C-alpha cells in the first residue's frame, strides 16, 4: 500500500492506495504518527483508493484517531469504498469513524456532509 500526505489549509490529507491489512497497517500508523508529531493534528484519511481493509487496518485507524485526539485534534475518514464500508458497519465502528463524502467535507464547518 502506498501512502501520500498532502497539507491542506485546515487539515492534512493522507491517501492510501491498495489494501489496508496486516502488512500496511503499521505503515499507516507510522505515517500518521509523523503527521501528528509534525503539528498537523487534524487529519483526513482519504480511502478512495483503499479497496480492502481488515480488522488490522481498522485497528490502525482507531489507533491513529486516538493519537490525533490526544494531540488536541481529530481524525476523519473520507471517500470509503464498499468493502471498507461493510467492515465499518459490521463492527459498528462507523459510529466512531464516520465516513464523509470527501476530504473537504470531513472538516467542513457546516458539519452536515456525512453520507
Amino acid at each position, binding site marked *: 500500500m502506498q501512502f501520500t500526505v498532502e497539507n491542506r489549509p485546515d487539515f492534512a490529507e493522507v491517501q492510501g492506495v491498495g*489494501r489496508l*491489512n*496486516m*502488512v500496511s497497517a503499521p505503515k499507516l500508523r507510522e505515517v500518521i504518527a509523523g503527521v501528528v508529531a509534525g503539528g498537523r493534528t487534524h487529519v483526513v484519511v482519504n480511502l478512495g483508493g483503499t479497496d*480492502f481493509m*481488515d*480488522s*488490522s487496518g*481498522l*485497528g*490502525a485507524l*482507531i*489507533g491513529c484517531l*486516538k493519537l490525533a485526539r490526544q494531540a488536541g485534534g481529530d481524525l476523519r475518514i473520507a471517500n470509503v469504498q*464498499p*468493502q471498507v464500508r*461493510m*467492515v465499518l458497519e*459490521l*463492527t*459498528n*465502528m462507523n*459510529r*466512531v469513524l464516520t465516513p464523509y463524502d470527501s476530504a473537504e467535507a470531513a472538516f467542513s464547518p457546516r458539519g452536515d456532509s456525512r453520507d
Partner: protein
Amino acid sequence: MTDVLAEVSRSGPATAETVDALHDDLDRLWAAADFVPDLDRMAFATAVIEAASNVVQHAVPSRESVQLGVDISVRPHRLHARILEIGAAPASVELAGEHGDDEEAESGRGLALIRALVSTVTFERRGADNVWVLWRDAPGATS
C-alpha cells in the same frame, strides 16, 4: 461430491507475505468465477483474509514453524474455504463469544467479523494441524 466451479490453493509460511499472496489468489478466483455476486465475493474474501491473518498472528508452532495452507472453492450456491495451520500447537478459538464494546480497542474484532461474514465457521484439531472451515451461502453463485 459437490461440484467445484472454481478453486484456488496456496501454501506457504504463516507470514504476512503469504496473506498478501492470498489476496491475489482471491482476485484470480473471482476472475474465474465472475458469476459470484459482488457482495458475496467481498464478504467471503474478507472472512478468509481475517482467518489467515489470525493464523499468522496467533498460531504457535508445535515444533519449528507454522505453515499456512488454504483451499478455496466456489460451489453451486456456496463459497467454501479450508484454512490449515500446519504444524501448529493445539489451540482453541473463541468463535461463539461476543466482542466487547470497547470502541477504542485496537484489536480483537477479527473473529466477530468472520462470524458476521460467513454462514458457518468451525475450528478444530485434525492430526497435527488446526483446521478452519468457512462456508458462506451464496444463492446467486451459480454458473
